[in-house]
């Protein structure tokens, strides 16, 4: 499929500005996916926002690819309201101590998205203003969307309220 001229311009600009970080562009069912190296993710996002008007961060989510290297993937779903283009920006991080830089400085909306990704996959976003769990209890020890986590959870890992009333 042909890339739209607007997206072609974005990819060319990204290739020129971040030559060593750019990896590959894929297309799938009308969506354009650009994969970059994780090290300068904040600069790349800032560049896309400032130079190509990707002002709307629709979502950030993770995937567990369950591979031995670069196990986790983080996907940024961004939209340019000026050119009406949607772009998926992907980056990968390793299994041991997965971490990425937070893009909350670029899009404040990233705050909760990154908290959710941290909650579900355990990917630590550095320089995040408030990296707490989003859905699971604070004292929960696991990351439920990782592939090794059982569907029904780990018995006893989340406390239920006491079902016997206080004796007083």
């Amino acid at each position, binding site marked *: 499929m042909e890339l739209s001229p607007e997206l072609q311009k974005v990819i060319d600009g990204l290739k020129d500005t971040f030559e060593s970080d750019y990896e590959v562009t894929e297309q799938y069912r009308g969506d354009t996916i650009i994969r970059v190296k994780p090290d300068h993710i904040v600069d790349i996002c800032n560049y896309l926002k400032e130079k190509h008007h990707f002002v709307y961060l629709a979502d950030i989510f993770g995937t567990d690819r369950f591979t031995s290297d670069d196990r986790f993937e983080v996907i940024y779903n961004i939209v340019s309201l000026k050119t009406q283009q949607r772009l998926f920006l992907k980056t990968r991080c390793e299994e041991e101590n997965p971490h990425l830089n937070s893009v909350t400085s670029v899009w404040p909306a990233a705050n909760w998205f990154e908290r959710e990704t941290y909650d579900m996959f355990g990917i630590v976003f550095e320089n995040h203003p408030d990296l707490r769990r989003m*859905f*699971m*209890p604070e004292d929960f020890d696991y990351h*439920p969307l990782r592939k090794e*986590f*059982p*569907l*029904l*959870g*780990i018995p006893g890992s*989340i*406390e*239920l*309220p*006491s*079902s016997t*009333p*206080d004796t007083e």
Partner: protein
Amino acid sequence: MGLESALGEGYLTTRIDDLVNWARSNAAWPMPMGLACCAIEMMAFAGPRYDVSRFGSEVLRFSPRQSDVMIVAGWCSYKMSHAIRRIWDQMPDPKWCIAMGACASTGGMHRCYGVVQGVDNFLPVDAYVSGCPPRPDAVLHALMKIQDKIRTEHSVLLDT
């Protein structure tokens, strides 16, 4: 105008249990614990078409201190379970509980790590209602079952 005119100079005798049970069973005020889509059916159950006021339960109080029957409508997450239990503990005795719908009864289709597999894991449930969501008349049926239960309660058991 009421009973007095029918009785004339006479009087009625009854047992205090029967009187109390009659009063309780016809004024079982629900505590609507609407957690998900079942709550919509619970509103229909309280609304004019199904009209729960026929059974004396039209007073849906959002205050646990004024209610007798908790209707848990919808799926309950582990995080929510603590809040529900706290509300349940604030309801004055005697109190009853309806688990409305598949999710509240068993976890339903939410067979996963975040959802309690049935609110009976932390609440003493009196009536379970099947359905996803149940029709309002099914909830009425559960309420009638609870009324039956109330009417057979004894405060003092005869030891014969």
